[in-house]
């Protein structure tokens, strides 16, 4: 029996006549990396946005540690596909923002926490740089630093390797794995990169036709004879 940190049941979301999610059931075990695979337009990002509270689901339930309600949102960090960094703030100010706005920590405590977060991600020398002055990989790490500085239990990654070359893509997944071990968070990663997902994830889920069609380990995924899974396996 898996100790579930996050349980999604019967999640539905429709835009006009177009039903994107038609009853998604998903279990995310504690301290694991779960990769949600799916074709483009399958509704992976919609699922993530429903979990993060950016979209309101039409139906369904999200339970965090067995309890329903909005508590989950306070425990959750979200890494956007395009990083969503504040371009008018420096790297330091970007990471300090959630602490300044949501906690009652003193200025020196915030400064220490931010510098630690930047140091952990190898960005301490770039604290005074603006996001536009950093490379794509560094921006990704800065966005992750901003997420991790509040110590979330769950981090939602929306297509973290979209538009990156294979080497950069490999680095991002290595980073997720490394920091998951270092900070002990649970990662829910939406991606269509099958190779990286198989190499990194503890569990995989396949979203197709608005439903999760498969959930299991990488070995189970590779052994599955379900046609859509096979097409994903063969595409790697």
């Amino acid at each position, binding site marked *: 029996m898996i100790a579930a940190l996050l349980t999604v049941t019967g999640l539905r979301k429709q835009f006009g006549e177009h039903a994107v999610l038609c009853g998604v059931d998903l279990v995310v075990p504690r301290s694991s990396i779960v990769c949600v695979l799916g074709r483009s337009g399958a509704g992976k990002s919609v699922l993530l946005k429903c979990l*993060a509270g*950016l979209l309101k689901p039409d139906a369904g339930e999200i339970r965090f540690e067995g309890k329903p309600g909005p508590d989950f949102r306070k425990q959750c960090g979200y890494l956007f596909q395009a990083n969503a*960094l504040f371009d008018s703030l420096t790297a330091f100010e970007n990471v300090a*923002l*959630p602490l300044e*706005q*949501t906690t009652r920590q003193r200025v020196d405590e915030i400064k220490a926490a931010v510098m630690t977060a930047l140091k952990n991600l190898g960005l301490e020398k770039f604290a005074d740089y603006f996001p536009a002055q950093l490379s794509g990989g560094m921006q990704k790490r800065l966005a992750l630093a901003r997420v991790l500085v509040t110590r979330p239990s769950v981090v939602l990654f929306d297509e973290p390797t979209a538009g990156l070359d294979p080497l950069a893509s490999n680095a991002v997944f290595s980073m997720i794995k490394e920091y998951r071990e270092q900070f002990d968070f649970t990662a829910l990663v939406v991606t269509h990169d099958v190779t990286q997902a198989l190499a990194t994830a503890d569990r995989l889920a396949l979203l197709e036709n608005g439903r999760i069609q498969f959930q299991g380990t990488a070995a189970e995924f590779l052994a599955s004879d379900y046609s859509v899974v096979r097409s994903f396996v063969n595409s790697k």
Partner: protein
Amino acid sequence: MPTGCVAKKITPYPNGTGRDRIEFQAMNCLATIIQSLRDAVSPVRPGYDPFGLVPRLREGNAPRPHATRHLPFVLPKANEDAVITHLLRTVGRRSLAVVAGLGDFAEFVVRAFTAVGHARQLRKGVARAIHQQGVRCLLVITVVSLFSGLVLGLQGYYVLARFGSAGLLGTFVSLTLTRELAPVLATLMIVGQAGSAIAAEIGIYRYSEQIDALTTMAIDPLGYLITPRLLAALLVFPILTTAFVLMGTFGGYLSGCWLLGLDSGVYWSNVHSAVRFADVRECLLKALVFGIITIAICCHSGFTAHRRIGVSGSRAVSISTTRAVVFSSIATLATDYVITSFLV
């Protein structure tokens, strides 16, 4: 009357009362409106070709017997009643959309003000907004107010001189500025300089998912982005309007006394005796109301840039910015009329 149109004539009551006559006129008016709608939407009008396009477009110069008119919109069918129903339904839908938009705007403003209770680091945000709306607009306000005063002085002097009242120039300039010109022109200048920047900045925040990022970090986007700007407007608009009045009055002094030789003592004495407390109160009240309305419109326009139908990205931000300035300007003048009509 075009062919095919049947105007429904209503015969009046032979010995009707006054009320009957009004009913008769109202019914006739309605019949005329319906007839005009029918004329406007009638898809086929034989031989109607106002620009003489048909002979040029078709070979042989033989006009087609039907369908010579190019309508601005395509009708599903020629059933006139259905078309009128369609038009009325469209008008109704648009009206409801306007009401819904106003409700959304009101909720936005109320939520932004109630966020004062839980917004963190508000002072820092307000200081930044004061710099954006106030300090950066000071030069524009100074220049515009000085030239407004200079022009008022020139125009006022020659008009008043015709009646032998050139000495009242100080009264004319100071009251015109205090009651009307300063609040309106200062607001329009701030909207042009800072309001457009606010709409564009927040629109870009929306499209680069920075507002979504705030939501995922459990930060209220209204409290972080909008509340400081509205609070800053409460301070900045009255101060800049006051600066406008002072610089404008000085401009009037320059043109009236320095250029046209009016006695400066007479000018300042008239300014001093003309402006009463009620005028200053009206001026500051207008500045406050204009400030809240225009900055709220600019913030709302940027915040809802993603809701523009048919456009997205930089084009949506550009349209939002343009609309913010246009709607703010219209709202300023309309509100000015309302406030003036209550206070005069």
